[in-house]
């Protein structure tokens, strides 16, 4: 072993399995069972990061997910580069490559450190105060500079090659955290036959017991008890054990999100291995056993590498066999750190002193320390530390009668601090449980639950091992659906530990040191920042948080929140619970986007809907567009045509001969029942009772606010039956609206609604020769001009397939829409196309359909309307059933403002320059040469080049538009005003002779 800091024996690592890894390009050796943090510490490496704002050298501070400093990037390859991982959670594997962040050119020499010297310019809220002047410097200088400097870590530039799984699970009892409380809870719940899920964010169950050196449970060591208990649980088929699994979010009705890391700890995941699995667990009851986080101390220079939480040093020694230094000073307010001191001393680390914040240090552990010859200094405080890339001395002060006296400088390479513990109430708070302030613990603990949930052990301030086990067992027993009346009991032997949790800054002499005292390590928030915020008038902790950014880093203030709150409370001269706590939000630790997306990426991001002729269109080289989830052929280019040429050719073919178009995406709803006509009457603006069987009508649907919601041709196919078509995108919402009125407003009507969109293929055959093409193919329907006039509907057969044949037109030409069962769609399409070739039949796409309908002034709901357009605005008053007492939206149309002559009307707009095609969405003005802010009276909704008419056409909504026919208006564009003339929206065949041919 090359590392001097690894103990010869002990801990849960396997010294026989060395692992090579690199950090910042330098090669090191760790052992199996290490985390990246423990392996670096075993090599004597503390300096692992530069801080966010001041670029101060930072070392590893903690041993778990609360680590604020040691954020690293782990690199497998270009696509598998993960920034901002806590080195304390990264499990070591052979060949692991990690890099530090937020430094240039190197960790030990970082140019950004200048920020620390310039910190007077970066006070709390500096981004609200600086970079304001001169104004023009923002885009050219400040923003690029800030963008370069901002952020932690860098996202990979390659797409993520990994796969992520998702799973739903149900259980009787979900236990979060597999420390002593969680294991006891799981044992108790499982004993009564419950389905239990037990999860823990670390690789190994046991929590604090894995580093426990003295205590015994039922005569076993802590780790032996864990092993036998986990074995018991593993044998139970109703228990699911999830290691490396973080409960990151607690949602209503006991819905808890878990993220399980499956392969990040493996040296080479096998092909197809899922990287993570997102569990969405619905639990009948939840037991939170999330433990507690040791509280750091706030004193000048408390952030140097080599300054750790005392409990972290204990964990590194007893779990990983790593000494965190050679000469330690311990600063503490409770007995737990004495155990660390004793264990370190036994492992050969020199303990220079224990500086106890309490006035007296008495009890079993302080006595044991003194007995071992360790100097114990009650009534101590810390006045400062020294060292750049590593702490090398600490200055201790003495508090006597409320006064801080002189300094005692002590050489050391390690400072271990403990201000007691902060219960991890994150998930409890996310569940909307009420937190209560506990003055004795100086912490918030869970009060009344909002969900079926119980907190057990350290996360509710119960710290003594015997109490923790009993609490866990009681919670697990009570959480089971069949409460366990005899929960397991545990016999614990442990040394008594006393302690006073400490809050806020340590006592300082007057004037205090100039050194920074950090409260939030990850966001570089100091005590002075918090004091400045309160001086500037911030009183709410929520405001202070946002102004100073304390607690807003990726660690969400796990180590900083309570100290920050106490300092703010003191500045405001208020009690801590009055200042309150900021809201805990999910996720507990960062969660990858990959796990949230699961398989919903690439081709599986959204479902794709295709029509029966999709393959045929693909074979013809069609260019498709997305309409909702549908793929629709937009145009069919021939011989390398561009869209413009293809659309011009397609339009000409429809107007001069015949075109064929797949309209299958139209929404279709079958309205059936004795009251079908009455239902349609109440819903649509049109009159339906007068519509005969075998006839159809252009229907318009409003909302009750009077604005157009949808439109489409509606056919009466029986006395009790309507075939309603909707816009392609509108089908689901129209059906939902129909169901709403049918079920909740008019439950008396006997009518049933069925979506038939995908049951029918719809083939539009349009153009002067369309009848010629279809004549010989249709059986059972006389499609002659007299027998089958415009808006007729008939049932018969076409090419042998049953058909519902419409004579309708969205082009202004003689036209038919052939409905056949979807499975016949392609065969009928090919047969019609084959027959039509001698007549010049031409396939066309949605772009041509748009041009043809705009030439006729037919609206597209959602393009020419926007939720503020009435039937009259759109020029569709003719469609309203005049004698109906009511329909949806009628009352709103009676409001005075709906009849104002100034409302925007749909009109045609013709550019003075016939080649000019206006931009859709462009604004319309009635005065030329305006400068912003302009007076605008409308906008362009549809605009195309019309090859048939030989000029461009546009539709627009213009205030009082129908009273402006012939007027010249102006479309202001960057190059100047474009002149347009207001016209009728019908540009082509206004008399409608062709449609009735």
């Amino acid at each position: 072993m090359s590392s001097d800091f690894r103990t010869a024996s002990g801990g849960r690592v396997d010294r026989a399995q060395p692992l090579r890894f690199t950090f910042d390009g330098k090669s090191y050796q760790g052992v199996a069972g290490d985390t990246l943090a423990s392996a670096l510490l075993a090599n004597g490496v503390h300096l692992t990061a530069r801080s966010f704002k001041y670029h101060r050298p930072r070392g590893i501070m903690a041993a778990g997910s609360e680590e604020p400093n040691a954020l690293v990037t782990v690199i497998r390859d270009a696509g598998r580069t993960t920034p901002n991982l806590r080195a304390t959670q990264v499990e070591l594997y052979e060949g692991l490559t990690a890099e530090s962040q937020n430094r240039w050119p190197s960790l030990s020499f970082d140019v950004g450190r200048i920020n620390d010297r310039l910190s007077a310019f970066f006070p709390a809220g500096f981004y609200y105060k600086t970079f304001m002047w001169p104004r023009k410097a923002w885009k050219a200088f400040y923003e690029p500079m800030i963008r370069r400097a901002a952020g932690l870590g860098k996202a990979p530039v390659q797409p993520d090659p990994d796969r992520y799984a998702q799973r739903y699970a149900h259980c009787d009892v979900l236990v979060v955290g597999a420390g002593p409380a969680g294991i006891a809870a799981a044992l108790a719940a499982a004993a009564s036959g419950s389905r239990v899920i037990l999860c823990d964010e670390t690789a190994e169950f046991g929590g604090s017991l894995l580093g426990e050196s003295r205590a015994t449970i039922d005569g076993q060591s802590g780790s032996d008890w864990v092993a036998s208990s986990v074995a018991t649980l593993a044998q139970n088929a109703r228990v699911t054990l999830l290691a490396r699994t973080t409960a990151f979010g607690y949602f209503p009705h006991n819905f808890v999100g878990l993220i399980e890391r499956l392969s990040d700890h493996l040296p080479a995941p096998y092909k197809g291995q899922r990287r993570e699995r997102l569990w969405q667990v619905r639990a009948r009851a939840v037991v939170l056993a999330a433990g507690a986080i040791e509280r750091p101390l706030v004193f000048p220079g408390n952030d140097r590498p080599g300054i750790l939480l005392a409990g972290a040093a204990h964990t590194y020694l007893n779990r990983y066999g790593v000494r965190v230094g050679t000469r330690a000073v311990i600063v503490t307010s409770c007995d737990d750190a004495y155990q660390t001191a004793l264990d370190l001393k036994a492992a050969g680390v020199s303990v220079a002193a224990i500086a106890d914040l309490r006035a007296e240090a008495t009890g079993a552990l302080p006595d044991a320390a003194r007995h071992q010859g360790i100097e114990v200094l009650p009534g101590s405080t810390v006045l400062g530390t020294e060292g750049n890339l590593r702490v090398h001395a600490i200055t201790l002060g003495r508090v006597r009668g409320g006064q801080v006296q002189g300094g005692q400088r002590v050489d050391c390479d390690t400072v271990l601090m403990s201000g007691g513990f902060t219960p991890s109430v994150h998930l409890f708070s996310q569940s909307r449980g009420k937190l209560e302030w506990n003055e004795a613990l100086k912490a918030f603990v869970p009060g009344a639950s909002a969900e079926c949930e119980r907190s057990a052990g350290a996360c509710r301030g119960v710290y003594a091992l015997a109490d923790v086990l009993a609490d866990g067992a009681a919670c697990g027993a009570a959480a089971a659906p069949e409460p366990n009346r005899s929960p397991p009991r545990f016999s614990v032997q442990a040394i008594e530990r006393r302690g006073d949790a400490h809050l806020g800054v340590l006592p300082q002499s007057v004037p205090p040191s100039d050194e920074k005292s950090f409260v939030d390590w990850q966001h570089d928030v100091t005590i002075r920042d918090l004091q400045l915020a309160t001086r500037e008038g911030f009183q709410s902790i929520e405001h202070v948080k946002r102004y100073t950014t304390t607690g807003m880093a990726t660690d969400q203030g796990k180590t900083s929140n309570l100290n920050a709150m106490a300092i703010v409370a003191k500045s405001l001269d208020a009690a801590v619970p009055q200042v309150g706590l900021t809201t805990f939000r999910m996720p507990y630790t960062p969660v990858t986007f990959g796990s949230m997306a699961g398989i919903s990426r690439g081709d599986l991001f959204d479902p794709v809907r295709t029509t029966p002729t999709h393959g045929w269109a693909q074979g013809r080289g069609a260019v498709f567009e997305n309409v909702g989830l549908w793929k629709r052929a937009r145009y069919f280019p021939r011989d390398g045509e561009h869209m413009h040429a293809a659309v011009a050719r397609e339009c000409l073919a429809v107007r001069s001969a015949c075109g064929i178009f797949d309209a299958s995406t139209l929404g279709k709803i079958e309205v059936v029942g004795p009251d079908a006509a009455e239902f349609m009457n109440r819903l649509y603006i049109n009159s339906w009772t007068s519509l005969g069987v075998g006839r159809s009508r252009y229907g318009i649907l409003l909302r009750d606010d009077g604005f157009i919601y949808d439109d489409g041709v509606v056919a009466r196919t029986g006395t009790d039956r309507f075939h309603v078509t909707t816009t392609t995108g509108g089908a689901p919402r129209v059906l939902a609206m129909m169901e709403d009125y049918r079920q909740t407003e008019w439950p008396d009507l006997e009518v049933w609604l069925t979506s038939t969109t995908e049951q029918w293929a719809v083939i539009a055959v349009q153009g002067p020769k369309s009848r010629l093409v279809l004549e010989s193919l249709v059986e059972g329907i006389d499609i002659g001009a007299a027998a089958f006039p415009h808006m007729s509907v008939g049932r018969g057969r076409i090419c042998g397939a049953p058909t519902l044949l419409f004579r309708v037109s969205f082009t202004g030409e003689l036209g038919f829409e052939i409905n056949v069962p979807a499975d016949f769609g392609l065969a009928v399409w090919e047969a019609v196309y084959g027959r039509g070739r001698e007549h010049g039949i031409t396939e066309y796409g949605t772009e041509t359909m748009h041009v043809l309908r705009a030439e006729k002034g037919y609206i597209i709901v959602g393009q020419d309307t926007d939720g503020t357009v009435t039937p009259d605005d759109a020029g569709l008053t003719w469609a309203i059933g005049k004698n109906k007492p009511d329909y949806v939206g009628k009352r709103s149309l009676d409001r005075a403002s709906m009849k104002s002559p100034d409302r925007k009307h749909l009109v045609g707009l013709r550019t003075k320059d016939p080649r000019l095609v206006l931009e859709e969405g462009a604004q319309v003005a009635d005065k030329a040469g305006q400068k912003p802010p302009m007076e605008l009276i409308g906008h362009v909704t549809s605009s195309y080049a019309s090859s048939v008419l030989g000029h461009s056409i546009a539709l627009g909504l213009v205030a009082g538009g129908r009273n402006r026919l012939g007027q010249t208006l102006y479309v202001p564009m960057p190059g100047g005003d474009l002149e347009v003339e207001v016209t009728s929206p019908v540009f082509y065949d206004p008399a409608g002779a062709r449609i009735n041919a």
Partner: protein
Amino acid sequence: MLLIVCPYCGKRPEIEFSYGGQAHIARPLQPSQLDDEAWAEFLYMRANTKGVYAERWRHSRGCGRFFNALRDTTTDHFLAFYESGEARPGLPATAAPTAAPERKT
């Protein structure tokens, strides 16, 4: 994600449902008889209750039926589920923090 008890299908996760806004607002039988103010009241005015709120849900990715629920907007706990057209039920004596209650039978 809420756990919602459809009166016709039973307990299902929220993703199967769509929200329908405040319950018990009937469309006037003769809208033409209302003045503008009364019509606007029906059309636009909705309660923003802190506490127990009667609201509509539709099991849109299930049976398709509309139904009503009583939900405490401060806790998101449901207190009752009932069919459209039924009167708003009285409140249970205590609202225990449990999973969604079973529908009364």
